[in-house]
């Protein structure tokens, strides 16, 4: 009987898969590829070399205003060179850049403007505009599309990537003329420019995969009633893996996560023993220099370029200590992917994807156990595990997923103990809680403050007073040692040891004028001013995220979901913690732990802000730089459980509540994946 049920279940999924694939292919071919079917035409090659009457070219000098980001990066580079010169006892001479011009207090760069006017004669559907030109430094172009002499689209911008000498724009307009304006650092010879407009029938694999997975996830939410009731961790694992896979495949080697190049370098190095082999592509990945793609055509060119430059026969050879630094162990899940990819001689993009899959699978594994171990608040843990920020980071090269997942697991175990005060603390739980914090805080030690909640466990949790005092002393010592390590790190190997370990030079080198010691002196010299700045900054950020302006759910540098998404998830989370499922017995954490939790959250948040002020902000600045909403994700669970109570009960049963939670988080993530990854990079 049970076997029959199992086969019925398998059969159901086979049917669902066939239906999903059929629907996805039909939608792709009949709807998305409709212009290619409707306006069938061969690619048109345009020659700007003067031989074609339809194409006119004009080259002029122009001044292009520098963006704030460009100005900042010039300042940061100069400041770092100044510090290095000062450390080496050399005189710092500021370099002159003749291509920069200052006019009325604004910085400009001298550029060449090449204007190409194209008259296509008969109107045609332009899906893709493929522009190839040999450039030493990346250039940009804009396109104005015209029909019957009228502008129908003037919002098309594209970069000509110097590494592939090409920039392919999505136009998707029915037009008869175009005006292309190229801005480049050096003059481009018109004869060297190749322009092709095309409208080919080319089904999009990423879009098809997206539709299939979306339909599969919908089917899981409909069919898996039992799992939704008592095995939410499995639903989490499957949905998170599907969404993470879409992100990994969709983003490819585009470096769009926070400081991804830093994490990529650390994980790549960890995948080697003492002898490092950096291929040109790996070096570019470590320097944040890999070219970005915006559509499948550019992706194909870039991946070919990366594979060509991933040749180990001319790799840069280096060495590293045979002992791994403790902080870098958090990169092991990614390093395994790099190691496997290299040993299987996979392409560069596939190897990077494998490293990201390592991260994703490890994140899923830890959160899986966090959900499984949570007592009567599994749904809220699943919701946190599926927050778009978390799913995105798990599918990127970053140590944040490891930090977030282990802190989530650690907090789940602590909350379990708080919810059952009469139950004694077992050695298994003691070990698991402390190890979760030890691993989770390895690269971000300040979060260990959260573990201090355990100092307030009542004596009922221990067999006797000795055990209680030793346990609490151990918690205190572990937390103290981790914080001590921030200021006095254990010496590590490396020729920059004396510079790196010199606290006089400590400070984040991505910003101008940072100094750890200088900033600490400033805070102690002006405690009142700093307290006001801290409270104001915290209040302002909370206001921005809750009352408008900034969407909390972000996919790195790709974009953020609108505010409505924040409200929706907040509403669902509040409902989950306030109301128990129908027939479920719940209890609150008690007023003592509510107050302690709030104090701990406020304290940890204040330390996070202060750490960014000390290490990342210019000394004495009246703002705190670099603090992002994602830093507070580990505090969401302790905040949420403050609302747990034994009085309120919803009319919905557990599986319906799970359906709502997973449904909302799936729709939110899939909408963000489609809007930010599929349309911006894969169409």
């Amino acid at each position, binding site marked *: 009987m049970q076997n029959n049920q199992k086969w019925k279940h398998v059969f159901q999924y086979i049917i669902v898969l066939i239906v999903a694939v059929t629907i996805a292919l039909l939608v792709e071919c009949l709807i998305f590829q409709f212009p290619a079917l409707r306006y069938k035409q061969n690619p048109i090659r345009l020659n700007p070399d003067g031989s074609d009457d339809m194409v006119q070219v004009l080259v002029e000098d122009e001044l292009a205003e520098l963006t704030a980001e460009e100005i900042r990066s010039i300042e940061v580079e100069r400041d770092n060179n100044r510090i290095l010169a000062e450390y080496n006892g050399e005189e710092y001479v500021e370099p002159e850049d003749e291509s920069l011009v200052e006019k009325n207090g604004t910085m400009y760069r001298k550029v060449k403007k090449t204007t190409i006017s194209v008259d296509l004669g008969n109107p045609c559907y332009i899906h893709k505009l493929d522009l190839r030109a040999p450039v030493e430094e990346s250039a940009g172009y804009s396109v104005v599309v015209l029909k019957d002499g009228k502008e129908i689209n003037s919002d098309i911008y594209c970069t000509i990537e110097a590494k592939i000498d090409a920039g392919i724009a999505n136009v998707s307009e029915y037009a008869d003329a175009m005006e292309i304006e190229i801005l480049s650092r050096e003059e481009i010879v018109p004869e060297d420019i190749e322009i092709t407009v095309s409208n080919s029938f080319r089904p999009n694999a990423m879009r098809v995969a997206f539709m299939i997975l979306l339909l599969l996830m919908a089917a899981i939410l409909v069919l898996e009633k039992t799992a939704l009731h008592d095995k939410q961790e499995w639903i989490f694992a499957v949905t998170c893996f599907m969404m993470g896979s879409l992100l990994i495949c969709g983003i490819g080697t585009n470096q769009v996560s926070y400081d991804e190049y830093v994490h990529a370098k650390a994980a790549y190095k960890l995948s080697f023993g003492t002898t490092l082999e950096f291929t040109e592509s790996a070096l570019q990945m470590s320097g944040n220099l890999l070219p970005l793609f915006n559509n499948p055509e550019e992706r194909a060119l870039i991946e070919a370029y990366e594979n060509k430059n991933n040749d180990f026969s001319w790799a840069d050879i280096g060495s590293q200590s045979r002992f791994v630094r403790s902080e870098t162990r958090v990169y092991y899940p990614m390093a395994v992917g790099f190691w496997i990819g290299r040993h299987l001689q996979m392409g560069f993009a596939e190897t990077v994807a494998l490293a990201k899959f390592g991260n994703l699978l490890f994140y899923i594994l830890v959160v899986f156990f966090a959900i499984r171990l949570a007592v009567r608040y599994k749904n809220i843990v699943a919701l946190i595990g599926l927050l778009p920020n978390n799913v995105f980071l798990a599918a990127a090269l970053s140590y944040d997923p490891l930090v977030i997942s282990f802190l989530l697991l650690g907090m789940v175990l602590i909350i379990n103990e708080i919810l059952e005060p009469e139950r004694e603390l077992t050695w298994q739980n003691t070990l698991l809680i402390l190890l979760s914090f030890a691993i989770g805080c390895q690269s971000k030690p300040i979060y260990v403050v959260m573990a201090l909640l355990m100092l307030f466990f009542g004596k009922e949790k221990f067999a*006797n007073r000795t055990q209680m005092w030793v346990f609490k002393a151990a918690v205190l010592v572990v937390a103290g*040692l981790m914080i001590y390590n921030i200021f006095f790190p254990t010496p590590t*190997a490396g020729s920059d040891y004396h510079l790196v370990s010199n606290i006089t030079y400590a400070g984040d080198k991505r910003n101008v004028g940072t100094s750890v010691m200088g900033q600490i002196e400033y805070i102690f010299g002006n405690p009142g001013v700093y307290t006001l700045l801290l409270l104001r900054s915290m209040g302002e950020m909370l206001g921005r995220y809750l009352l408008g302006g900034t969407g909390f759910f972000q996919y790195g540098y790709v974009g953020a979901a609108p505010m409505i998404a924040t409200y929706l998830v907040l509403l669902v989370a509040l409902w989950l913690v306030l109301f128990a499922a129908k027939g479920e017995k719940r209890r609150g954490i008690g007023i003592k732990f509510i107050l302690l939790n709030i104090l701990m959250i406020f304290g940890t948040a204040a330390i996070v802000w202060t750490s960014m002020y000390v290490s990342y902000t210019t000394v004495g600045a009246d703002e705190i730089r670099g603090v992002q909403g994602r830093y507070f994700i580990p505090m969401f669970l302790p905040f949420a459980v403050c609302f747990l109570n034994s009085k309120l009960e919803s009319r919905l049963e557990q599986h319906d509540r799970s359906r709502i939670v997973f449904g909302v988080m799936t729709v939110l993530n899939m909408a963000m994946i489609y809007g930010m990854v599929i349309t911006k990079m894969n169409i």
Partner: protein
Amino acid sequence: MKRLKQKLWKPYIILPMLTLFFLAGFIGSYIFPNTVLDTFVINMEEEEDDTEVLLPLSLQEPIVYELNTKGLPMRGIQVGINKRGYAQENTTLVYAVYKEEECISRNVYGVAAGDDIQYVYLPFENYEACIGDIKITFLLETAGDAETYPALMANHAQIEHGKTTAENRPEGEEEKQVALKCSHIYTHDTYPFLYDCRLLTFVFLAASMAVVYPQRSGKEEKHAE
């Protein structure tokens, strides 16, 4: 044996043993540090408009390099040696370190061992004394049958904390300021397992307490109450 194994695998045995293991690692990390080399590149490449100079070694006139170690004991120096196309069999280089005119380290290197152009690490004996203002001399002790002696590589860079003096110079270089192409080598101690061992000592101590006390006394005390 099987009974002993079963007994040892009890958590109240294994957890205290692990605590002691990590405590031993904690203490051992301090007692047996891992010493690593620090390479400070001083002058290894020519500026854009500069050219390399070869300073020939001789049996009589040493090439002298003076520097300040900035308070760190210097473990050795990395220099560029050019064998000038000869095998240089039986040619030995003596490099001595002087502090206040007193020789504090005298060392020998067989030039034939390396390639024609070699960037070789020359470690100092008694390196603890090589601190502060020191002078390193490079002189040939024995020369083989080669017609031309090996040379140290140099250039015309301006070096803040290093002064090179050489009597034997190629034609046209007599009056110019030259700087030895070199890296200063220092060391420092690292403690690769210190961070983990000290944390895990306390993690396993807490876990041990959770199992040992209830096992040995706690439960009985509670029951007695």
